[in-house]
């Protein structure tokens, strides 16, 4: 194997692929990054049996071949190379990387032991890359992070015609994001449970091109797989990941709640205030919000230790309400809103609060993203 390639193209593709390599590989070869030459370029692959990442990039290939080398090391090297073209040569069990006068000789891993990457399923449709990335970031805001409950670490994607709905919940809050896409078939109908962490990273990493194609394999039981593909530079980027299995909670129906008190606040002002006040809140202790005419008073901390309070201007329609929230959960929701004003709807201090963004105070909320947050019951 021998090729010459642009330094930035290589570094970008290697970094993109190495991102998904396991930190503690179950078998040593999985720490490797597979380099394969094609007629007009290379493909770089990483795999951990759950998630695969593959980048293609154009290169001048002098000699065909394939080699497996330590992905982390290669990524570190590529990031630090000078801005000159890079020449990579395989010689027996060594791979040599030469860039300017810098020269690295790397040991190879046994390429014949490397598992076969799953095939990319056929494309189901495509979505605008920027919007997809934004939507995913919002949807994963309520996803669980507790590996003891793997089902809740997923985002449920529901495809109905030209709409994709994404929802997540960790039992304490829930998110629902809807976005339009261009399906291959107008009567498309499918659902999948995608690991939230992989989905978030993938969507963020595919914003170089304008579109992302989404490919969902057999949605029934068994080895479900979802693939995402986008373009970057002179090549493509694709990721596949295994779907999670299980009956996801019915998140959508949770959002049907009615409301008694409706509040509009300036999103940024509330975020800043919650951050400040919750400095004195110990882990898992709530920030308390008291909504009255024209304002909300935020409080955190206990009498024995530190206490903090702050008031923020608000438009409050309906009866006064006092309610407590886990401050991190509240911040997760507020930070995901992405609009100047936040619209909050309450029924009671033991019932969930519904958050949505609005363009300005008093305006109807934009319901493409909604966040439902269960309060903390305050004692005493």
């Amino acid at each position: 194997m021998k090729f010459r390639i642009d330094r930035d193209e290589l570094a970008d593709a290697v970094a993109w692929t190495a991102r998904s390599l396991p930190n503690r590989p179950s078998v040593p070869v999985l720490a490797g990054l597979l380099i394969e030459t094609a007629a007009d370029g290379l493909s770089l692959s990483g795999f951990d049996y759950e998630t695969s990442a593959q980048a293609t990039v154009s290169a001048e290939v002098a000699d065909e071949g394939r080699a497996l080398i330590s992905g982390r090391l290669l990524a570190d090297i590529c990031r630090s190379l000078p801005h000159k073209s890079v020449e990579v040569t395989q010689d027996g069990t060594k791979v040599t990387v030469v860039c300017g006068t810098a020269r690295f000789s790397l040991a190879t891993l046994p390429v014949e032991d490397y598992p076969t990457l799953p095939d990319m399923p056929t494309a189901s449709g495509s979505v605008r890359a920027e919007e997809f990335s934004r939507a995913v970031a919002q949807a994963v805001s309520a996803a669980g992070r507790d590996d003891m409950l793997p089902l809740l670490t997923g985002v449920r994607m529901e495809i109905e015609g030209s709409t994709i709905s994404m929802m997540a919940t960790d039992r304490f809050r829930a998110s629902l994001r809807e976005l339009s896409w261009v399906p291959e078939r107008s009567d498309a109908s499918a659902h999948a449970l995608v690991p939230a962490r992989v989905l978030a990273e993938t969507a963020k990493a595919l914003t170089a091109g304008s579109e992302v194609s989404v490919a969902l394999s057999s949605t029934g039981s068994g080895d479900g797989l979802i693939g995402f593909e986008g373009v970057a530079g002179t090549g493509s980027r694709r990721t596949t990941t295994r779907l999670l299995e299980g009956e996801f909670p019915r998140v959508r129906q949770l959002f049907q709640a009615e409301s008694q008190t409706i509040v509009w606040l300036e999103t940024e002002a509330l975020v800043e205030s919650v951050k400040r006040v919750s400095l004195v809140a110990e882990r898992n202790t709530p920030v308390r919000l008291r909504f009255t005419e024209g304002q909300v008073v935020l409080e955190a901390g206990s009498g024995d230790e530190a206490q903090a309070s702050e008031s923020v201007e608000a438009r409050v329609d309906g009866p006064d309400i006092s309610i407590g929230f886990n401050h991190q959960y509240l911040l997760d929701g507020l930070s995901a809103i992405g609009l100047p004003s936040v619209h909050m709807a309450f029924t009671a201090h033991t019932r969930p609060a519904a958050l949505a963004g609005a363009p300005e105070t008093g305006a109807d909320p934009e319901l493409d993203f909604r966040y439902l947050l269960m309060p903390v019951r305050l004692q005493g």
Partner: protein
Amino acid sequence: MSAGPMSTATILHVDMDAFYASVVVRDRPELQGTAVIVGGGHRGVVLSASYQARKFGVHSAMPMMRARRLCPHATVIAPDFSQFGAVSAAVMETFRGITPRVEVMSLDEAFLDVAGAWRRLGSPVTIAEQLRARIADEQGITCSVGIAATTHVAKLASRRAKPDGVIVVPPDQVTSFLHPLDLEELWGVGDKTAASLHRFGLRTIGDIAHTPTTILCRALGAALGASLHDLAWGGGRATVVTRRGPEEPDRSIGSDETFSRDTDDPTVVRRELLRLSTKVAGRLRAARVVGRTVVLKVRFADFTTITRSRTLRDPTDIAVEIHGTAAELFGALGLQRARIRLVGVRVEGLRPTESAHRQLMLGARACGWSEAERAVDVALRRFGTTAVRPASLLAPER
């Protein structure tokens, strides 16, 4: 006021000598000077043994059958906990007459900080002797006292002082006192830790002290390694936390049960865990505390004992949650027909219920197990302890 070189050694560790056995002998003078073992029936363990019985190798926590074999002529007496409790309470009151800063560790031991009593009652040694004389006089039992600047050294000193003695370890003699001792004496060194330290050729506390912390941390983990090194140089807690009993908040509430016959039936074990969890949860609610860490203890037929714990997201006093966690911990052991002698459930990290908030769950009912179990408490108070209980505990097993 005298302030000698030992002016900072003001922590007393007072430990009753063979407490249960001493109390029993006190009430039955004919047993004075004979081998006495206090413990449960023939499946129980030795709770306490008189020094005459200890000469034959009997020690507490030993299975009763073994103790009887070692010392067949000993008088075995079933424990009377109400009697022990009464004596203990009286002893602790005596302590509190000397200083309010009393940290009760169990029925028969406590830490006292006598720094504030110096002017009134004299030096710590004087106080220790007064204390011992009063307890011998009022309760008819003896105790031993260790005096040092830290709780850890004081405890080791009282052990050395046994029986019926006092040992003072002034700050400048801490290392010469500690270093020759076997490392097993250190707090936090159990059989496993001792074995791994022995593999490094370490035998005494001095050996630990002169081993670089980095090596200890590598061998034992960062927390334990650093803590042992600190203790080996006389470190550790130098304050006494006022506490009226071993189960006051910040400690734990738990309950154990030895099966009448060893069992390998997971259903039986889970049912027992439910019974223990119900009991523990009731005690938590009665004490108005909640805890976040659930600890499962399992002792096998061969007496090896393991504990597994899980820290919950929110503190709890709900039997269903405690049992759920304990049962999960039990399931995670993956036991294959292992014969089990005893199981225990314990809740740790306790704090007052008023200070605990509860994150509500989406889709959950407004009234849940917490309300249901509190309603059961009310019913039990009115109609007796067997009025309401989980259906799976209705089986006539005891």
